[in-house]
């Protein structure tokens, strides 16, 4: 242990009062005067003592006597001056402020500097940048918004949302008094913090109303919502550059997690006609219409992984009403191949330009290469047109002309040879069909591949088919008699472009997952099967366990585009 230093010896009877504002200027030299400075900081030092006049009995003039205290050396040797003044004057000092006083002055100075900085910031040319809570998102910072800023001169666009930022036109500056008025006019105001808990979550505010001046046409969610929800509660601005952050789940759960709110929505929904809910603009796309559940979409939940309802398609075991007869399992099986390769999903389902969804399936693009409509086994070049049954009939009725055309294309130019060729082909056809009507009936209604009209189904040495059979239109389509002019009625094919219209799904973001992991196409044999994944399939990844986001905004959008602006909004 180190040796402690002894405390130095000093006079403990005297001490300085640290709470005084001034101290003797000689204090730092270790020799402060006894009197000390005045309260206003003036040196009061005069002399080391104040001599007193001592008069002995009988003396008229008396003698001046030194009164210097013992601790200061006692009476001085020189003694007082003849006029009674002290012979040892104390040199004047420049009193210093005490530490405490200097600290107090520093506090005042710092407070004053702060006030000046605030005033400069609030009234200066950079007032909007100074008070801004941060950069606004790219949505409110683009070219269009820059043009709109001219509507709010001087406020750099702040006045678009903040009423308090609407500037004085003459000065083009913000007015602090206006800010104060806005602050104290807000409800609850700054002096009413005790009323904060009474504020309804998601209540519309002045800022939200300002949103609607630009964002008109944005309807609030479903028609059966019980009240409008604050824009700014979900869309947080001033969070930095870049896109605005997606709304927090809590905002959705504030209603969808509340049984009372959902019950109120259910009751309101009951009073509305079903047509009120048929508001979605298809924007040209074919969408799969799901019937509205009895209670609407008012199930109470607060987590996708845990209690979010299963997709309605699976919940209600909905079926694909498409009339096309299609067997996914067959097409993905071994019996179907192209160029020796089994078909894959991507052979038919090609992504669109954005990669989010897929291009529509068409016969010409996706079916024709295998399902060529070759009705004549001897002349595979002869193909009936796909589409309108009337065109098929016209084609069949013009078969002699079609065969003559084929003859010319085959190099037969002489008229006699052409007629002979046509007669030969027509004779062969009559061996299959009694007459033209019979041939037309076979082509429209035949659905049995074993009674093929075309030669396509040839079996290779590998035992695999190279071409599909063309049995007849009814092989793929629903063909019924009773159409106009005795034509059959072919039920139009309707393949939805979008199945889950209440949620958004981006296939491009899921390319790391194989199709079969979500879509059970390999086991689907009926057209009616809707082979969309179940919620459980999604939650394998989109759950806390899976580690992928399961936010509401990942799939859903709160707003619904309705009315005349709907198309414009969707396009935007």
């Amino acid at each position, binding site marked *: 242990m180190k040796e402690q230093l002894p405390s130095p010896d*000093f006079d403990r009877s005297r001490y*300085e009062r640290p709470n005084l504002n001034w101290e003797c200027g000689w204090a730092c030299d270790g020799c402060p005067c006894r009197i000390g400075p005045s309260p206003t900081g003036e040196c009061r030092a005069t002399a080391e003592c104040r001599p007193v006049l001592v008069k002995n009995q009988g003396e008229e003039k008396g003698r001046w006597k030194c009164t210097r205290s013992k601790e200061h050396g006692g009476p001085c040797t020189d003694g007082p001056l003849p006029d009674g003044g002290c012979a040892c004057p104390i040199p004047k000092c420049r009193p210093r402020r005490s530490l405490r006083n200097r600290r107090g002055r520093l506090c005042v100075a*710092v407070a004053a500097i702060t006030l000046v900085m605030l005033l400069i910031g609030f009234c200066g040319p950079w007032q909007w940048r100074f*008070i801004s809570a941060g950069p606004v998102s790219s949505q409110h910072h683009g070219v269009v918004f820059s043009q709109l800023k001219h509507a709010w001169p001087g406020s750099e666009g702040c006045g678009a949302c903040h009423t308090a930022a609407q500037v004085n036109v003459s000065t083009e500056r913000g007015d602090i008094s206006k800010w104060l008025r*806005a602050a104290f006019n807000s*409800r609850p105001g700054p002096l009413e913090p005790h009323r904060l*808990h009474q504020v309804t979550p998601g209540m519309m505010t002045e*800022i*939200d109303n300002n949103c609607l001046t630009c964002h008109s046409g944005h309807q609030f969610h479903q028609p059966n919502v019980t009240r409008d929800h604050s824009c700014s509660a979900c869309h947080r601005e001033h969070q*930095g550059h870049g896109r605005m952050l997606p709304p927090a789940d809590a905002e959705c759960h504030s209603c969808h997690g509340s049984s009372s709110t959902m019950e109120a929505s259910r009751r309101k929904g009951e009073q509305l006609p079903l047509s009120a809910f048929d508001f979605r603009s298809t924007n040209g796309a074919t969408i799969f219409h799901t019937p509205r559940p009895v209670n609407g979409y008012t199930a109470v939940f607060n987590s996708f992984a845990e209690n979010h309802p299963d997709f309605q398609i699976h919940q209600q075991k909905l079926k694909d009403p498409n009339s096309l007869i299609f067997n996914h399992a067959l097409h993905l099986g071994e019996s179907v191949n192209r160029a020796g390769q089994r078909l894959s999903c991507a052979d038919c389902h090609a992504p669109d330009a954005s990669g989010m969804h897929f291009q529509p399936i068409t016969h010409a693009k996706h079916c024709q290469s295998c399902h060529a409509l070759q009705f004549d086994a001897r002349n595979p070049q002869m193909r009936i047109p796909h589409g309108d049954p009337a065109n098929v009939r016209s084609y069949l009725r013009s078969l002699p002309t079609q065969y003559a055309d084929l003859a010319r294309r085959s190099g037969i130019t002489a008229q006699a040879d052409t007629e002979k060729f046509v007669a030969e082909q027509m004779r062969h056809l009559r061996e299959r069909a009694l007459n033209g009507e019979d041939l037309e009936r076979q082509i429209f209604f035949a659905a049995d591949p074993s009674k093929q009209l075309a030669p396509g189904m040839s079996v290779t040495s590998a035992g695999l088919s190279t071409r599909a059979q063309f049995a007849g239109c009814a092989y793929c389509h629903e063909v019924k008699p009773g159409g106009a002019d005795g034509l059959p009625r072919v039920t139009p094919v309707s393949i939805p472009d979008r199945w889950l219209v209440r949620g958004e799904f981006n296939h491009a973001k899921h390319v790391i997952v194989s199709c079969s992991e979500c879509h059970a196409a390999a086991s689907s044999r009926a057209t009616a099967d809707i082979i969309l994944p179940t919620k459980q399939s999604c939650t394998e990844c989109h759950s806390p366990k899976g580690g992928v986001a399961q936010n509401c905004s990942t799939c859903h959008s709160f707003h619904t585009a309705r009315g005349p602006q709907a198309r414009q909004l969707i396009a935007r």
Partner: protein
Amino acid sequence: MKGFLRRRLLWSSLLLGASIAAVSAFVLWASTMSRAAFLTGWLLFGVMLLLTSYNWFKKIPYLPLGRSEVWLEFHLYAGVFTGVLFLLHVRGRWPTGWFELVLTLLYAVVMISGVLGIIISRGWPKRLTARGGEVPFERIPLIRRQIREQAEALALNSVAESKSATIAEFYTRRLHAFFRSPRNLLSHLVEIRLPLNSLLNDLNDLNRFLNESERKVAAKLVELVRQKDGLDYQLALQLSLRLWLFIHIPVTYSLMLWAIAHIVLVYGFSAGAR
């Protein structure tokens, strides 16, 4: 000591309880409450106001506001609690606007200076006691003068007594500046004794050139050097015990003014939005 430990346990429990309650309430209700940021903000401002008023409570001792010791303990633990409230208020997000950035920095300065103040207030007195030579701060110049006068007298007298100016020259060259004013304050703060040892080594080296009487003077000078060094140590630590408040208190007032402006801006511009 037991009482101190008991009080520390009590205050720590209160701090822990308040922090857990605040965080739990925030986690439970922040998502469903519309104005959670307003509430945490008001709570934070209220606690900061109480903390600021501690300086004023000390100035009005005639009011029955309880013991200053209790207020100091409240000040320390409530100060830490504001850290929890601050993080809840800003939701752990670093501010992106100039105004809020300055507000955050002011808070950070007050908080850091406060924590440093606690460390200094708790640690320095132990160091001062361990080193010894304790003396009231206000008397340090007086004692320094006394030591300097003694040293000067020794140096001057040595010339006449030993008929040699070696010590006087050494004093002029090496010791005069040392005794004249406070020295090596930073070294004392970080407990570095290199300057003292260097000076003592020089004095030790000087001994080779001194006669017997001069060596006695040199030994006395060594003693005075040690006393002066101890005095500087006292000054350095006692001064830092006072100077940290030169940052903490003024910046606190600046923070409070900035916070009031923040409240006005928030109410004026949010129009009720959170």
